[in-house]
């Protein structure tokens, strides 16, 4: 019954969009007010690996509020919960790489603050974003450590021509409120520009767990953010930019589990404080030389406490992290065929009394060899006090066979130094009871625990732990074809393969007298992710963009494959949980890493009919089933384990502009079919929103 209702909604939507298509044939020319597309020279746009760009207009048409909402609709990206790190651990996965390996940048500078490696993108508002660039694949040659699996560069609004202001009010399901106020103006005869914006966001969260009588699986929160930017042209050569961002998030989530007259309350409180500031001095010197000197500071602090209704504390996770960076960048345009960008810099990271210094230098050249062949070569050297030096090269080639067909090939390496946690952590999980020790704590902690009579067995592998952890390494390859059969229709097909070496994994080093394991970290397995990404974009009819994207993904751990091949316990067996029968396992039984869908598909229809000031979007996202957890105790994902079912989420939005573009009314529907799954705690059901935008500008 439900399905038929949904089907009707669909038919209606389809009909209305078809009606819209037929309308577009008789187009008038009326000026539409939209944000001017500006060309920004950014580092990520110079990456050898493929770059996806989401522009302001797309963001506005989608009506998304938070960054995670935008990202989850992109090809090859998934937002997944990390259940092992608590209900607030949620991160973005790119080409099968987990959030740990994806670097998040704001105007080219790294953002910090992760929960067990997961960067929760919902702490960033979309309101101030000019565009988003996504680099897929290892790109440490430009961005350094952490950019092992990819980079998301958030570019805030930079170019200001005229004074204007904007107020946005949105309200909808789950008491969601999104308020934005922003203003920008040139000053001093357009020598300077100033931009200020503020945003408030509230959500009641969303619950998809039917065992909860109260509370939410996607936690409720209030978020406040303030951003400001100033740019001043000192003279013809020199200009100064100052940018700052401050964001605060508070969240209280009280969950009540009720069953058979038992009610248990858990209270989870989070305070999060996030600050970024940058000062950039830019000099355009003679003959194509440009110099950029910058200082960047970011601070992130969080306190998170989980307690039961009996005021028992279950876990607390409090830390403050600082990150400083000085960088001197040089750009040189030698000719139309040849340009260079290079830089040197230093970072200092401080977290709860531990600090880590590192220095780096990079150089990249773009060379248009012939009309048909262009190349891009880059190299970066990073040096950290603790991990020593490392060189990361990257290379990209583009060859145009014909006007319609071009081929690309790219190669890059990435590396990631182990974080503080993996070195210094001493943690016992109060629920499961296991202990995790950072590698530098192993010797002393094990000795202390043995002295206290808490250890029943120390495994031989514990001796190997004392050796320093090696940084994780990735090598990425990408080959692609871009084909334009007719004007305004483009087909891209990319094959990618990422090899991860020295993958840091937990390993059991000892057993406590209470049977619980003690873990530490070791460079153990080699994983890989590989697949194909394909996309088609079309804009034949004026105002209408139809596009589709697909990703095929294989992500596996070679260590698991080897263990199965060698018959190592417990990988050597596979139990059919339906019959209870157990047999020997084969490598082909291994499906891959958890939480990764083999097939991901998205379809988007964006339509704008300028004469009426109407725009609408319709998006559908499909993900095939993905593994949730082991169910038959062999530590690898096979067909008898627990899976998140295949699903598809549908999004739609409609906007109408009034008063010569000053006023706009927008209605959005996220997850229109209200699809939820208990195994995806962070994915909310249907969210309907209505919004009002008022723009002030001179005609």
């Amino acid at each position, binding site marked *: 019954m439900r399905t038929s209702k949904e089907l009707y909604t*669909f038919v209606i939507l389809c009909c209305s969009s078809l009606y819209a298509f037929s309308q577009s044939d008789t187009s008038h020319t009326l000026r539409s007010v939209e944000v001017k597309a500006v060309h920004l020279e950014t580092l990520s746009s110079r990456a050898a690996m493929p770059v996806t760009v989401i522009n302001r207009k797309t963001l506005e048409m989608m009506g998304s509020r938070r960054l995670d909402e935008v990202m989850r609709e992109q090809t090859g990206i998934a937002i997944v919960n990390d259940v092992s790190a608590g209900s607030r651990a949620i991160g973005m996965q790119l080409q099968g790489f987990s959030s740990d390996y994806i670097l998040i940048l704001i105007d080219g500078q790294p953002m910090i603050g992760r929960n067990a490696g997961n960067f929760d993108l919902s702490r960033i508002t979309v309101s101030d974003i000019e565009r988003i660039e996504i680099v897929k694949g290892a790109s440490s040659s430009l961005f350094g450590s952490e950019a092992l699996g990819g980079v998301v560069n958030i570019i805030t609004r930079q170019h200001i021509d005229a004074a204007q202001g904007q107020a946005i009010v949105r309200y909808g399901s789950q008491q969601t409120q999104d308020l934005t106020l922003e203003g920008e103006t040139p000053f001093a005869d357009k020598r300077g520009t100033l931009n200020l914006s503020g945003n408030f966001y509230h959500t009641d969260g969303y619950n998809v*767990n039917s065992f909860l009588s109260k509370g939410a699986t996607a936690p409720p929160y209030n978020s406040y953010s303030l951003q400001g930017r100033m740019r001043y042209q000192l003279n013809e050569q020199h200009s100064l930019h100052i940018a700052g961002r401050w964001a605060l998030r508070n969240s209280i989530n009280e*969950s009540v589990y009720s069953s058979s007259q038992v009610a248990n309350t*858990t209270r989870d409180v989070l305070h999060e404080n996030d600050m970024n500031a940058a000062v950039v001095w830019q000099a355009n010197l003679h003959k194509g030389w440009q110099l950029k000197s910058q200082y960047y500071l970011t601070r992130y602090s969080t306190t998170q406490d989980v307690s039961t209704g009996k005021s028992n504390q279950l876990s607390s996770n409090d830390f403050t992290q600082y990150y400083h960076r000085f960088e001197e960048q040089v750009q040189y345009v030698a000719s139309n065929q040849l340009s260079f960008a290079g830089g040197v810099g230093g970072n200092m990271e401080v977290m709860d009394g531990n600090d880590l210094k590192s220095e780096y230098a990079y150089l990249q050249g773009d060379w248009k060899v012939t009309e048909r062949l262009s190349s891009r070569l880059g190299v970066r050297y990073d040096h950290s006090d603790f991990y020593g030096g490392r060189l990361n090269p990257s290379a990209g080639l583009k060859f145009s066979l014909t006007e319609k067909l071009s081929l690309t090939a790219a190669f890059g390496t990435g590396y990631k130094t182990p974080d503080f946690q993996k070195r210094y952590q001493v943690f016992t999980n109060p629920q499961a009871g296991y202990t995790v020790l950072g590698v530098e704590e192993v010797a002393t902690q094990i000795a202390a625990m043995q002295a206290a009579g808490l250890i029943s067995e120390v495994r031989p592998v514990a001796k190997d732990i004392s050796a320093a952890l090696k940084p994780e390494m990735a090598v990425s390859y990408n080959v692609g074809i871009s084909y334009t059969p*007719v004007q305004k229709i483009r087909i891209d097909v990319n094959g990618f393969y990422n090899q991860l070496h020295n993958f840091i994994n937990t390993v059991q080093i000892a057993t406590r007298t209470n049977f619980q394991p003690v873990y530490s970290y070791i460079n153990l397995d080699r994983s890989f992710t590989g697949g194909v990404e394909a996309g088609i974009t079309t804009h034949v009819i004026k105002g209408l963009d139809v596009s589709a994207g697909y990703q095929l993904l294989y992500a596996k751990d070679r260590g698991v494959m080897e263990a199965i091949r060698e018959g190592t316990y417990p990988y050597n067996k596979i139990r059919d949980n339906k019959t*209870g029968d*157990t047999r020997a396992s084969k490598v082909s039984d291994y499906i891959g890493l958890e939480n990764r869908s083999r097939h991901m598909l998205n379809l988007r229809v964006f339509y704008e009919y300028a004469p009426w000031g109407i725009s609408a979007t319709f998006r559908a996202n499909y993900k095939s089933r993905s593994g949730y957890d082991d169910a038959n*105790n062999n530590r690898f994902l096979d067909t008898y384990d627990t899976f998140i079912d295949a699903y598809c989420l549908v999004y739609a939005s409609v906007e109408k502009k009034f008063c010569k573009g000053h006023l706009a009314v927008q209605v959005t529907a996220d997850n229109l079919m209200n699809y939820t799954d208990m195994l995806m705690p962070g994915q909310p059901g249907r969210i309907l929103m209505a919004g009002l935008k008022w723009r002030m500008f001179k005609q």
Partner: protein
Amino acid sequence: MAITITNMYKRTQWQCLAFIVLLAVACKKDDNNVTKLNYEDGVSTVIYDLAGDTEASVADGVEGKEKRPFRSFYFKLSTKLQSWDSSHTFKQSNNWDLAFTDIYNALVYVNNGSAEGPGKGGSGKGMIIAVDSAYSKVTTAPDEAAFEKANLRFAGWDGYPQPYNTGWYFYSLNTHLAIPIKNRTFIIRTADGKYGKLELINVYQGNPPAVTDLFWPAPYFTFRYFIQEDGSHNLKTP
């Protein structure tokens, strides 16, 4: 040219829309994937959410919560009585059949007076063996000799501390949660020497099909059992 492109394009458009509809039909809502199983068969006893020692903590430095070993509790199958009495007299009596011990009370012993365990030195005749089969398909208890040979003494973490220690749950290395093993049934002998079968179903409150929260309340036991009161080996249930 323009017309051909437009026509071709419109056709593509139709195909796209048909595709979206197909996708939408394919994605029906499935009520949170929660399938609540019915364990009642008319003759077996089903225990829901029997609270274990929910006040204990295994972690160091957890404020407000007592860091101490989990207090064991004892369960008499025929009377459905839970007891926290850990005196020697009680432990060595036949007033219990199952002892829920250790971490999360999930290490389950039978009451046996002549083997290592809480009932040692008492008069209990308890034994336990595992069968990888659905509960309803386990219809007879083996003879004495076979029972003695396969006796596990306890059922806890599967494959731990040794691979041959068959258990009823395991810890996932991925989520660090306890996961019960489906369609594994234990054939038991009670303290009094009667045969029966036991299915330990879950340690988490409400018996969820999968646990999605690290702080899901535990230990709350869901289990079912059938005891053949006539003393025979017949364990048939509907």
